[in-house]
């Protein structure tokens, strides 16, 4: 029971302290899991990160579930995942109340208007760092251009593009 509680608290802390999405969380997770609690070895941790990146869904959730499972089975994964999602739930509960209350505030509306160009910059930044590791050869650029065409034509649902990309991967790297 103690270990489950500890998993919950540890992942709650990881969630609460890390701004900026999954990759920003990894150093926190590493410190808590390997250094503070010695729940995993470094090579197990690297394995888990690799799998978390390869499976769908937010990386932070994936790695929390995985670490929880390694440490204490199904119950462990439930508590670790609950810990990290509890942060989101609590914070959004507060923010939802606040934005509702100040919905008509000119001050708040102006804040949001000003943050929009920043949002664009943040997404471009995410694109650039992903592109750096993804575009390793001509084949990967071909895949991305085909997917871009599918997405811009609006005729293909974004979810279908994932399947198309997987098939293209098998064809391009497997056949040629």
């Amino acid at each position, binding site marked *: 029971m103690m270990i489950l509680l500890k998993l919950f608290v540890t992942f709650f802390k990881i969630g609460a302290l890390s701004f900026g999405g999954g990759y920003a969380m990894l150093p926190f997770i590493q410190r808590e899991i390997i250094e503070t609690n010695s729940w995993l070895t470094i090579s197990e941790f690297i394995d888990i990160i690799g799998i978390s990146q390869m499976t*769908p869904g937010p990386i932070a*959730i994936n790695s929390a579930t995985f670490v929880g499972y390694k440490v204490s089975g199904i119950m462990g994964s439930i508590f670790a995942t609950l810990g990290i999602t509890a942060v989101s739930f609590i914070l959004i509960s507060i923010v939802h109340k606040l934005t509702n209350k100040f919905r008509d505030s000119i001050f708040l509306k102006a804040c949001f208007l000003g*943050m929009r160009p920043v949002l*664009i*910059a943040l997404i471009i930044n995410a694109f650039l760092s992903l592109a750096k590791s993804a575009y390793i050869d001509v084949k990967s650029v071909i895949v991305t251009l085909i997917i871009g065409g599918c997405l811009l034509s609006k005729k293909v649902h974004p979810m279908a593009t994932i399947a198309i990309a997987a098939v293209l991967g*098998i064809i391009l790297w497997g056949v040629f």
Partner: protein
Amino acid sequence: MNNLYKMFISFFKIGAVTFGGGYAMIPFIEEEVVNKNKWVSKDEFMDMLIISQSLPGTMAVNCCTFIGYRLGGVIGGLVGVLSVTLPSFLIIIIIAISFMQFRDNYYVNLAFKGIAAAVPMLVLTGVISMGKSVKKNFGNIAVGIIALIGLVIFRIHPVIITLGGAIYGVIFLRKQVK
């Protein structure tokens, strides 16, 4: 209730198929929430994204929780957080139990190469779509470029940059607010 059920299915689907983390999820969430079901307007969606990104926690989970709250209060929020988390949880459990050797499979590896190459493009379509909702005047473009330089070259923390945007809004954009 019907809406929450539909939302659960939408977010579950999104959680189950989006590779590449939170930013790659944006076009999927936008398609389901803004275009298809019209649960929130595009402007509201952008506000939610910027909040979700500025708070601690996982951006995608924050965003889906927020949309859930908007649709159905606390229950909606709970449905939101659960539906986007559940697929990851189930997939990882299955992998942890049985398929650890799965990733060494030749074809799985090739498929993942393809998916990895597609992920940046998914993120880029988010830029294009969001960009349409930002007025292209001198101030906004300048702030966007300065923010990008701050992020890429000077590695300033995203939260600080976001705060900068809020200050810009309060000082210069108050007249634009209806």
